[in-house]
Every structure is written in structure tokens, then in C-alpha cells.
């Protein structure tokens, strides 16, 4: 090795090391708090991390699991998170209590909160068919709000249905003690459907949206302060996140997405997870929808429902806090949903 070659090699190593350090130093560190545990419902969030969407935007994002106790809105206010996932009712309630939030995008275009029932039971063609049925609800949960709205809409009095409190344990449904059971369509719904299929039983899903009740589910939020002080960071984050979601919902990327989710959640079987992803596509990017798009009408309806049920004291005019323009990025491709929900 002559002297020139040695110097060239040293120069190359120095430049490479310097650029790596510089790139690392350029990356902005952000915390992103999910609403729930790592599962297929967060596949876009997980995949944005796994496929390097955040890094490509110069961001170093820590995606963290959520739970009822680990609430994204609290974390935003306490400065522990920069972005988060919250359901519409959480957002509206927080706004009612003086929180300074904005909604950047809506992940689920169709609320995954639905009800499952066996196909040997009378089909629910109209809301009046709920009369006299044993319906499960999580007292205090979104499903309670949605079901009460549906009952009000159909002029069904509470004593005309048998509302039963449900928990994580599906035994009452398996034993037919509760007929219509609330599930997240893309996660528990798939598992229950599979289990019952093994017993030779078929199921149907009851989707409130089919009866005109559009209660918005998970959306991406940040603080007003963040949006005001670092709009470029917000834009970069959202671009990266929606790219992650778009890629995750692309059937061509399915194996990579499943591998990324599996890395974070080892408990779900591969076959189930694959089916869960297919359903998630329909909910996040349906044929008639746009990924990340904020459905203002649905948000207003959600607020109206909450106001009517006394979950908020006064109108918050949630439309003022929706920042639709930030989600307008690379959304020109065809939706990935193939209509399997129908």
C-alpha cells in the first residue's frame, strides 16, 4: 500500500465517520405515545419506524405503547411525548377541559369498534332489531357511548334491551350468555371469528357506521404549542408517519409489515395477524377513503353524541382543532382496501 492510498483511505474513513456523527446529531428526537399496546392496529406506526420513514425525515422517534393509564394527552401536556394517538372522545373531552391540542390526522376511516354475533342469530338489518337482544358493552367505554346513541336513534328504551357489562374475558359470549359482543373488528374480531369457525359457527359484525353513527376512533394529535413552534417538525413527522401507514397498508409490503409487527408483538399467530392486517387495511384505507384524512362530519357527530350524553359540558367546536392540511401528503395512490368488510 503506497502513501497516497493510505492517505486516501484515512480521509475516506474520517469523512464517513464525521458524516455519520453529523447525521446523528441532525436527527431530532421525538416521543410518540400510542393509544394501546403494539398490535396490528398500530402497524403503520410500527412500520414507519421499521422502514426508516422517520429517519428519512431526519427524525429519531421513540414509539411507545399506550394504555388507559398511559394516556397520550396527559403525556403531551406533561411534555413527555411530542405526538400521540388518542380516540376522538378523549380529544373532545380534553378540549372540554381546557387542553390545548390539535388533531393532525385520523388513522381509522372506519371505527374498528363494532359488535360480533353468531350468524345463527337473527341478522341486524335495522336498529330496531336490537330490541330484546342481549348486548355487551364496556361500561364507561366508547362502545357504551356508541350503543346508547344507536338505541336513542332507534327509540329503543334501555329496558327493551339487555345491556351486559363485558370484560377481557369472552366466556359469556362463548357460552351465549351475551349475544352481541363488542370487539375491535381488526384484532379481537378476527380472533373470535377464527375460534368460532373452528367450532363450526359463523359470525356477523354489526358496524354502527352502517346505521349512520360515525364515532371517530384513533387520530394523531400534538400540542398547539408544538404546532406553533415547530411546524416543520410536525410536517416531517406526519409525512413520515403517513408514509409508514401507507406502506403498511400496501399489500405488496405485507410480509415486511407482518415481520415488523411480529417483532413487537410475539403473541399473535402469523395466520391471525395476516387476517388482522387485511381487515385493518379496510378500516384505515377503505375504497372510498383517503389515508389519514380527517372526517370533519364524523368528528362533529362524535362531539354532538358526547354532548347529548353529558360526557362534555358544552360544545367545544372540535372542527376548530382539526388540522386537515397537514395530512395532505402523497395521498394520490389508490386505496389498498379490497372491500372484504362488505
Amino acid at each position, binding site marked *: 500500500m503506497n502513501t497516497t492510498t493510505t492517505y486516501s483511505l484515512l480521509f475516506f474513513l474520517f469523512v464517513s465517520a464525521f458524516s455519520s456523527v453529523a447525521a446523528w446529531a441532525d436527527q431530532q428526537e421525538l416521543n410518540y405515545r400510542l393509544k394501546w399496546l403494539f398490535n396490528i392496529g398500530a402497524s403503520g406506526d410500527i412500520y414507519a419506524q421499521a422502514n426508516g420513514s422517520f429517519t428519512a425525515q431526519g427524525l429519531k422517534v421513540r414509539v411507545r405503547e399506550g394504555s388507559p393509564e398511559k394516556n397520550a394527552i396527559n403525556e403531551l401536556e406533561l411534555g413527555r411525548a411530542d405526538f400521540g394517538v388518542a380516540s376522538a372522545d378523549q380529544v373532545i*373531552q380534553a378540549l372540554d377541559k381546557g*387542553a390545548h391540542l390539535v388533531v393532525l390526522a385520523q388513522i381509522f376511516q372506519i371505527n374498528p369498534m363494532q359488535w360480533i354475533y353468531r350468524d345463527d342469530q337473527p341478522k341486524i338489518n335495522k336498529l330496531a332489531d336490537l330490541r330484546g337482544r342481549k348486548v355487551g358493552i364496556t361500561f364507561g367505554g366508547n362502545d357504551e357511548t356508541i350503543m346508547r346513541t344507536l338505541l336513542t336513534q332507534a327509540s329503543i328504551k334501555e329496558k327493551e334491551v339487555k345491556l351486559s357489562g363485558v370484560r377481557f374475558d369472552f366466556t359469556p359470549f362463548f357460552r351465549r350468555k351475551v349475544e352481541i359482543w363488542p370487539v375491535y373488528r381488526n384484532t379481537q374480531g378476527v380472533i373470535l371469528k377464527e375460534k368460532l369457525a373452528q367450532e363450526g359457527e359463523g359470525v356477523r359484525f354489526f358496524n354502527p357506521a352502517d346505521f349512520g353513527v360515525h364515532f371517530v376512533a384513533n387520530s394523531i394529535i400534538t400540542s398547539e404549542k408544538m404546532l406553533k413552534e415547530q411546524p416543520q417538525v410536525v410536517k416531517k413527522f406526519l409525512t413520515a408517519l403517513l408514509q409508514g401507514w401507507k406502506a403498511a397498508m400496501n399489500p405488496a409490503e405485507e410480509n415486511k409489515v407482518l415481520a415488523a409487527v411480529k417483532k413487537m408483538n410475539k403473541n399473535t399467530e402469523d395466520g391471525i395477524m395476516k387476517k388482522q392486517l387485511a381487515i385493518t387495511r379496510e378500516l384505515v384505507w377503505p375504497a372510498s377513503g383517503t389515508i389519514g384524512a380527517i372526517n370533519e362530519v364524523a368528528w362533529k357527530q362524535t362531539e354532538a353524541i358526547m354532548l347529548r350524553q353529558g360526557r362534555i359540558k358544552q360544545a367545544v367546536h372540535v372542527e376548530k382543532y382539526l388540522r386537515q392540511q397537514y395530512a395532505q401528503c402523497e395521498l394520490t395512490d389508490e386505496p389498498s382496501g379490497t372491500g372484504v368488510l362488505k
Partner: protein
Amino acid sequence: MLVRRTYQFLIVYCIGLASLLGLKYALSLSDYVIPSIPLILETAGQVFSDYLRAAFSTLSVTVLGQIISIILAFSVGIAGRKSSWLGSFIRATAYNIQAYPIVALAPIIFILLGDGFLSRLLIASIICYFPLLLSVLGVMAAPVQEIEHFYQATGRMSWQLEVKIRAFENLSKLTTVISGSATLAMAGTIVAEFIAANAGIGYSIRTALYQSDLAKIFVALFLIGIIISLYQGLLENIGQWIIQKKLG
């Protein structure tokens, strides 16, 4: 004892609340994260009677659960007091089961008994039972030689007399353990209600948590604190009365 416990709780509650409010105003947090005093009072006005009923429902399960666990702990403790194989087996089993977090056992209990009264009662009893059992075993397995010697030497010792001697000699320890176990029983009931039940203050907390309504949780915590203070104070008073009456 009753009054002292109550005002001690009120002091702790007020300090906790004041700290949270300090944090709220220092960090300019919204009412969603930490509710203001007017919001807490307004919420209390709305839910107090319901929550009070729920808290009494929890208390009734707690009392029943505690009674069951006391009876069980004494029965098993008495049966296993001899340093025989059975005694050491019971002790080892109690230690092992106590090591299991109840949230891990709860799903099995709910599958077997459903999410009603029995599950709450069983979980309250389980949480309260094992610490009680270990204390009772400790008391019952330790001979009071200076009293028992005469009865053994003269052939008058029976298992009933042995239990009576050991229980009487450790009366203050047992009453302290029993009154202390009230907190465990209450915690057990609340955990059961939180995980799966359709009634009780733990259930109310869970519902409030679903709604991210910390004001309701503050009201619930206040009621839990007051009720457990009163209950524990009452048990301590009963214990003191028994000790005074028996020990002089």
C-alpha cells in the same frame, strides 16, 4: 383511634391533592390532566351519592371477604401449627401463592365464577388471606412454654387449650394483623372490581379511567380512604377493647 385515623387520612389526602394542584399550576396543565378544585367539587356533587353506594358495596364485600379469610386462616393456621409435614407444606404453599400477583390469577377466577359478587369476594379473601395465614401460623406454631408447660406436664393439654393460650398470648399481634388485613381486603376487592365486576368503587374507578376523568378518581379515592380509615379504626377500637377487657 377512629378519629385519629380519619384525620390522618385527610391530612395525607390534602397533601397529595395540594401537590398535584401545585404541579398543575406550575406546568399549566389542563383540567383533563389534573382537574381543578371547582371541577373536583362539581364532579363530587354529581357522583358522590353513586360513589358512596359503590364504596359501601365494596366495603360489604371487603368485610365478608375478611371474615372468610380470618376463619380460613385460623382453621388452616391451627391445623398446620405443628412443625409437621402438613405445617411446613401449608407454610410453603402460602408463601408461593402469595407470590402470585392477583391480576394473574384473576382471569382464571373470572372464568370459573364469572364477573359477579363471588369473584370479588374470592379475590378479596385471597389477597387478605395469605398474610393473615402466615401471621396466624407464626403465632400458632410458637409455643408459649412458660404457660403450656404445666398443662403438658399434668396431661391437661388439648389442642383447643393450646390454641387458646397461643391466641391469647398474641392477642395484640393478632388484632393488629386483623385490622391491618382490612386494607388488604379492601385493596383486593377494589382490584377485583377494577379487573372485572359490575359494581363497587373499583368498577367506578375503571369506568372513570376509561373516560380519562381524574376528578371522578379523586372522589373515589377520597371515599375509599375515608371508608377504609373508618373501618380500620373501628377494627382497632374493637381490638383495643378486647385487649383491655382480657388483658386488663
